[in-house]
């Protein structure tokens, strides 16, 4: 089995076109700001976009840049540049490619088009050592002022304590004060509005997930990447992100009413944990040949996880954002990561879980066994784990990946999991 089933990697939701337009206008806004002399910020570690929005800060999210470059199959080039500068190949390709991009004098035409040199860098300790360290290379390279936001992991079994929320809220306040020294204006009312928008976006996202849990699934993992993950990464908290979610909710509801499904004759439902190959997204469609649909994947949470909307209180916007960041599923030591996988398996009636072990990442891959044991113990659902670096294509072996999927899906079929 060497060719892909549908070979699209694209979404056929109408919302996708709206997302594309919003993204284009976002990036044009950043370039325009640079042209006008407004300082451009490069931020590492998925910090609250609500703050950027409330202060009108033109921000390039470092991870967004890495994702875009990977989607155009350019990561390998930039990883190699980082390796030539002495960084180990064993580091995360998101960050190796970012280091390579910063160091590259001769950028490829695509990157040349989207790259904006930073005037300010914001680093953070969220959610891994690579995030916490790689931005220092950018600071060296561009000689910009920088600020580091310290984000506590979440090891507290009994819930997040007050002092942790206060500490992170203080970190966000100090970040705001830092940005103010560069001429950005903070208006609390605007941040409240952004948090209100985020809360509403979370409610809409919950509704959408309710539809996604239906059998057969109305949308696929690829749809979710384009229409959920991407807008959240870029602009959660903005009016435009909220409108995209309203549009998406309506469109998915309409699909459900009209009986439109992601895959005709759906027989198996899969959940993919980890980053799929962003440079070969059509792989997400590959299991379709077996009547299997990936109903849920981690590309949904590229921009942060779905949290209880009531945690976002516009009256306490900064504390809400602090709480949101700490309880994010990606934050280390969170028991909820395995519990959430079990809930996903149950809620979406998942028949099998595929876990992707990304080279260079010491975060999720080191939790895959915990997740595997939890979904088996709590939901009697099998999980397979194999190596796949979703960012760097240099070691991507398509036939191996396909054969891993083939054998897992065949096992599920033999086990009588098909509907």
């Amino acid at each position, binding site marked *: 089995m060497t060719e892909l089933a549908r070979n699209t990697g694209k979404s056929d939701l109408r919302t996708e076109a709206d997302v594309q337009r919003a993204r284009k206008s976002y990036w044009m806004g950043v370039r325009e700001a640079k042209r006008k002399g407004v300082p451009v910020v490069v931020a590492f570690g998925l910090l609250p976009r609500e703050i950027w929005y409330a202060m009108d800060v033109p921000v390039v999210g470092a991870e967004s840049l890495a994702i875009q470059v990977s989607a155009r199959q350019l990561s390998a080039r930039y990883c190699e540049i980082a390796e030539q500068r002495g960084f180990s190949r*064993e580091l995360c390709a998101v960050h190796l490619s970012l280091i390579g991009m910063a160091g590259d004098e001769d950028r490829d035409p695509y990157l040349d088009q989207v790259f904006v040199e930073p005037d300010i860098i914001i680093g953070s*300790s969220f959610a891994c*050592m690579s995030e916490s360290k790689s931005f*220092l290379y950018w600071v060296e390279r561009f000689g910009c002022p920088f600020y580091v936001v310290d984000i506590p992991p979440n090891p507290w079994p009994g819930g997040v304590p007050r*002092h942790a929320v206060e500490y992170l809220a203080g970190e966000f306040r100090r970040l705001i004060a830092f940005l103010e020294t560069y001429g950005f204006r903070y208006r609390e009312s605007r941040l409240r509005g952004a948090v209100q928008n985020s809360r509403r976006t979370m409610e809409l996202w919950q509704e959408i997930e309710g539809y996604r849990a239906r059998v057969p699934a109305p949308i696929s993992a690829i749809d979710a990447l384009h229409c959920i993950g991407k807008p959240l990464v870029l602009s959660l908290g903005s009016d435009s992100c909220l409108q995209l979610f309203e549009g998406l909710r309506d469109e998915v509801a309409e699909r459900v009413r009209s009986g439109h499904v992601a895959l005709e004759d759906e027989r198996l439902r899969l959940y993919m944990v980890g980053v799929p190959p962003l440079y070969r997204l059509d792989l997400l469609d590959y299991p379709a040949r077996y009547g299997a649909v990936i109903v849920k994947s981690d590309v949904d949470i590229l921009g942060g996880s779905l949290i209880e909307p009531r945690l976002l209180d516009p009256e306490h916007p900064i504390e809400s954002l602090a709480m949101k960041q700490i309880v994010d599923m990606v934050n280390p*030591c969170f028991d909820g990561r395995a519990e959430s996988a079990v809930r996903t398996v149950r809620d979406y009636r998942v028949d099998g879980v595929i876990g992707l072990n990304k080279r260079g990442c*010491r975060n999720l891959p*080191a939790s895959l066994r915990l997740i595997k044991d939890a979904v088996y113990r709590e939901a009697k659902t099998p999980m397979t784990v194999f190596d796949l670096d979703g960012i760097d294509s240099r070691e991507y072996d398509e036939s191996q990946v396909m054969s891993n999927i083939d054998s897992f899906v065949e096992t599920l079929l033999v086990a009588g999991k098909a509907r």
Partner: protein
Amino acid sequence: MAALEALRSAARDPQPVARAAKVSGRKVLGYRCVFVPEEMMHAAGVTAFPIFGTPEAVSLADSYFQPNLCEFIRNIFDLALKGKLDYLDGLVLCNTCDAVRKLYDHWKSYIKTPFCHMINNPQKQFTEPAYEYQYRELAEFREALERLTGAAVTDDALQRSIKLHNETKSLLRKVYEFRKPDLPLLSGEEALEVVMGTMLLPKEEANAKLAQLIDELGTRGRSPLAPGPRIMITGSIIDNPTLIRMVEESGAMVVADDLCTATRYFWYPVKEDKDPLAALARHCTEKPVCACMHPAEARLEYMMDLVREYRVDGIIYFNLMYCDPFLYEGVLFKKKFEERGIPMIALETEHTPSGLGQLKTRVQAFLEML
């Protein structure tokens, strides 16, 4: 050199030390690493046992962790899975690297000792908010210990422990003075084992041994090393002397180190304050010894102080494979050291270095260049 031998043999075989503590009826808590205050455990009447790896190959842990996670951590988890740490009543970790955080998750789920606690220390140092946050985290740790032992950890007890541990640190500093002469009276290999032995032994006993060692070194007369370039070793954890021995056998004098099992452990004393918890919180947020922390500049300055104090000619930076904080820092700091006229070589190694031959060739080439 009886004290030297006693400390070195404790370092070589840590388990009897823990088992002896266990037999005495005290609870034994394993811990990692330099941001876990031993003083607090000592004041709680608990034995603080620094967990080191062993040269044993990892086997059982391989089905829990991907092979490209720090081998030191996989090694510790492997020992736990094999029941070789069964004398531990629990584990205390702190918020440093990804691998340590994952050890915490896995320990809770699969080892299930009665106690497992993570001190969620800030990763930004030298700020008042970080200090206040650390203070709260230490207060929680104190309460957790009190629940474990059923007895209060009083300020008095804590103050006494801080004094005792400061004495240890000060004695280790005196021992390190013997590395400063043109021909050091203590080799790098010996120094590593002295510190590791000290970390393992009950501090009352370790202090007596260190005092005796200072006398022994004062009359040693001859250096154990042949003249050569003065080297500082830094990087990821080194919990076995093989690498340092190899560097010294290649013709270097290892006169200084910046390691979790050496200076990072003892370089900074805790202020003897009337609020001992505040003193520990200050200590944790003001010792710039770890590559996981910010700001990096503070750590660079601390390392440069070591370079000056020990008249270092060159730095060997040992990166354990997959150890992200040091893999990044190594590249960033190489440039900084070289700008300050200190040559540095970075070497990536496994936890139990098997391919020493190739490393040795590179070390020799580096030493020749100095």
